[in-house]
């Protein structure tokens, strides 16, 4: 690996973030923290092939084979773990986001290197992105802009309703990509769309860029300067090769951080990069976020009395149930929205709750060695049984068994994963599920805090994992 395309190897492999953003990293296995298996190394030594020479088809890369032709599922498990092991330091994040998604619809998107075509794939991922974005950021706004025929094209306006965006996206499915893209035009349109975004929210642009050129009417550097002045952050996902202007654009608008520009290697990687942007961005400097206090209404759902229906103020359609603005009493049919009469932001308290897990992430679980494994026979949460500790290995002594089958990093040899707060053991599936979907630790939630304190007197904080709103809050750091 190292002799082939050394210039792209990030030397600090311990940080998963860096791995994700390494631009044309050759072999994902090598980039997996210390996870390279003997079989892979062999290939790299005698092959030394370039990144683009290696097949990137998922069916070949996802399941690495051992030398005897058996599928190496440990590597697969490592891959799943890698995805969920992320930095769990609570960071200040821009929860209230304003993002413009810019889609390349130029000739370059007709390429078929991503199947079925770049264009079709980008559109379908964009739909997934919209859904995921609003699921993760319910109180945020989104707009979509296209680039084709040298101009910027407004696909959908700034809004908070995923259904509207999806509907507009669907209209473009039948059309073919055409013409040149224009970065400058698109960015200017984004500036316009984000001009009115309030100062407490983020202003972001995400560009999916398939072309290697941009036909601009003026000097794009002026536009970049304006973007910086207006504190708009730009991220780019490239589909063909690295383009200097995109790199500059990203690093200048992200205070010198060049990790926001990535080039997708294959379909899976593209999706990963694309959807990574649904996580709220970290606020790096004080200037990027002006914290402010927002007045919001939390209306309750009410039913019109006696089965009657009345008009809602937002769509002027008759509806039976709705929400009354807590300030002026106007009826709206859908949340979150802004009161059409008095302009108060109306949200459900559950919308706020949905964002909390970004602020207070669930701490990672650790692998359990065989020595500790004996005290559990089944996963605490789903009750599927664990493999039994190998008795033979114990007698022989560890040092013999360990190097013979060194599991990839992040994979527990005993198939158990432990939450360090409550000390319960879990299986890989529950580990993934708890960290990716629930954001709760089943063990911590299943015992009261006194019980947790009694069970684990050594852990400093007795608060349950991921439930640190009151005690953890002070630790939130501004990374600047």
């Amino acid at each position: 690996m190292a002799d082939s395309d050394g210039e792209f190897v990030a030397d600090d492999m311990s940080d998963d973030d860096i791995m994700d953003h390494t631009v044309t990293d050759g072999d994902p296995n090598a980039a997996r923290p210390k996870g390279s298996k003997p079989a892979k190394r062999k290939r790299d030594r005698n092959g030394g092939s370039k990144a683009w020479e290696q097949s990137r088809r998922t069916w070949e890369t996802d399941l690495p084979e051992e030398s005897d032709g058996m599928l190496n599922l440990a590597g697969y498990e490592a891959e799943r773990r890698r995805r969920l092991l992320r930095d769990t330091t609570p960071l200040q994040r821009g929860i209230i986001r304003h993002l413009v998604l810019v889609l390349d619809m130029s000739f370059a998107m007709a390429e078929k290197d991503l199947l079925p075509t770049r264009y079709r794939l980008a559109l379908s991922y964009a739909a997934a992105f919209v859904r995921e974005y609003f699921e993760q950021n319910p109180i945020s706004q989104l707009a979509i802009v296209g680039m084709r025929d040298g101009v910027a094209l407004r696909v959908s306006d700034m809004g908070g309703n995923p259904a509207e965006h999806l509907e507009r996206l669907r209209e473009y499915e039948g059309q073919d990509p055409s013409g040149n893209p224009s970065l400058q035009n698109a960015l200017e349109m984004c500036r316009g769309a984000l001009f009115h975004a309030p100062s407490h929210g983020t202003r972001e642009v995400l560009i999916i860029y398939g072309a290697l050129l941009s036909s601009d009417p003026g000097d794009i550097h002026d536009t970049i300067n304006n973007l910086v002045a207006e504190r708009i952050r730009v991220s780019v996902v490239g589909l063909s090769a690295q383009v200097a202007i995109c790199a500059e654009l990203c690093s200048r608008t992200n205070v010198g951080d060049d990790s926001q520009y990535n080039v997708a290697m294959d379909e899976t990687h593209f999706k990963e990069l694309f959807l990574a942007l649904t996580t709220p961005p970290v606020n790096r400097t004080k200037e990027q976020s002006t914290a402010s206090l927002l007045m919001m209404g939390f209306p309750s759902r009410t039913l019109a009395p006696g089965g009657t229906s009345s008009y809602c103020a937002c769509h002027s359609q008759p509806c039976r149930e709705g929400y009354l603005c807590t300030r002026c009493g106007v009826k709206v049919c859908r949340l979150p929205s802004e009161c059409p009469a008095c302009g108060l932001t109306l949200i459900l308290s559950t919308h706020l709750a949905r964002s909390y897990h970004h602020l207070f992430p669930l701490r990672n679980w650790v692998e359990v060695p065989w020595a500790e494994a004996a005290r559990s026979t089944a996963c605490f949460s789903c009750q599927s049984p664990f493999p039994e500790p190998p008795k033979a290995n114990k007698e022989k002594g560890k040092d013999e068994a360990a190097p013979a089958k060194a599991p990839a990093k992040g994979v527990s040899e005993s198939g158990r994963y432990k939450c360090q707060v409550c000390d319960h053991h879990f299986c890989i599936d529950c580990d993934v599920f708890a960290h990716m979907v629930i954001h709760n630790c089943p063990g911590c939630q299943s015992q009261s805090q006194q019980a947790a304190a009694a069970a684990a007197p050594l852990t400093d904080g007795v608060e349950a994992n991921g439930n640190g709103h009151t005690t953890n809050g002070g630790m939130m750091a501004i990374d600047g």
Partner: protein
Amino acid sequence: MDAVDVSEHYEVTAADNSPSLLSIVLDTNPRAWAALDSSLSLAQAISNILVFVNAHLAFSNANQVAVIAAHVNRAVWLYPALQHPSSTTVKDNSGDVQMHDASAETSLPPPSANKYPQFAQIESSVFSSIQTLMAETTVQDLDQLTTQLSGALTLALCRINKAAQALSSSDTTLSNAAPVNATAPPPVKGRIVVVSVSDSDPSQYIPTMNAVFAAAHNQVAIDTISLAGDSTFLQQACFNTNGIFLKAANPRGLLTYLMFGLIPDTEARASLITPTHDTVDFRTACFCHGKVVDTGYVCSVCLSIFCTPPDNAECLTCGTVLALGNYGAKPAVLPRKKKKKKKIANGSGREETGSATGTPRP
């Protein structure tokens, strides 16, 4: 007549008989049950629930159940009961029909010829687990008015997730690990029924909501039958997951409520009219005084909710100095807020507030 009708397509779809996994979360707060004892004792409630469980299992032999107790200080599995480390491990992670491990075998009474074997197994497992649970309850535990609901929900979700994975085995495609494919129907019709008797615990708000969003994400409906207590969170949970929320006015009729209101699973609900959520309380508690408010101030950094702007405009949770946003820019705003506070305190007069504030806005 002589032409082949090409417009007619013969589609072969899998008959929709995907198994349905019912998880019952039983609130076992001893104090609340003691209060209810005159109308419905815990033992009666459990036998009613068991009939409901049997009814669910009767639908198809692919259906499964799990029963979880949300106790005052922990959440535990009642069925399938946690296997003890000493007993022989059964290589069988369904743990459902093939419960043949030593401990279960010895504790089981001789099977009766008058009962479906599976029903008898569940019954004995639930009763023995709940006895152990009650025996382990200490006097201090009785002080608590709330239960570990979030834990029980989390456990139930983990199990449904595991069952779904075992069925779909989507693990060959890594891309599915990312929760994107929300349109495809889940391989298991998961459902959680909560039998609630106690209040919602405000300190569990975030974990409970996390569980609710996970349920909504996995298309698992959370149904609630509330026998006593004020279960605001569960009301919101049912609303968010398209579940049914029933408030039992007469707890004695638990079986009827269960059999009538909660028997249809997600498949049957597609063709049945379900009770609507008429009014759902979505007001929230502020972080500073714990008051329930309908209009509040939210810190843009940490999303803490305050009933009044905090002193020195400094967020009490994260310590950030907050600008008063575009709302508080004008000094005229401050007296307005005080007025509002009073209005909220007496809870009525929303319309008046609206008219009073509507005009001075710039």
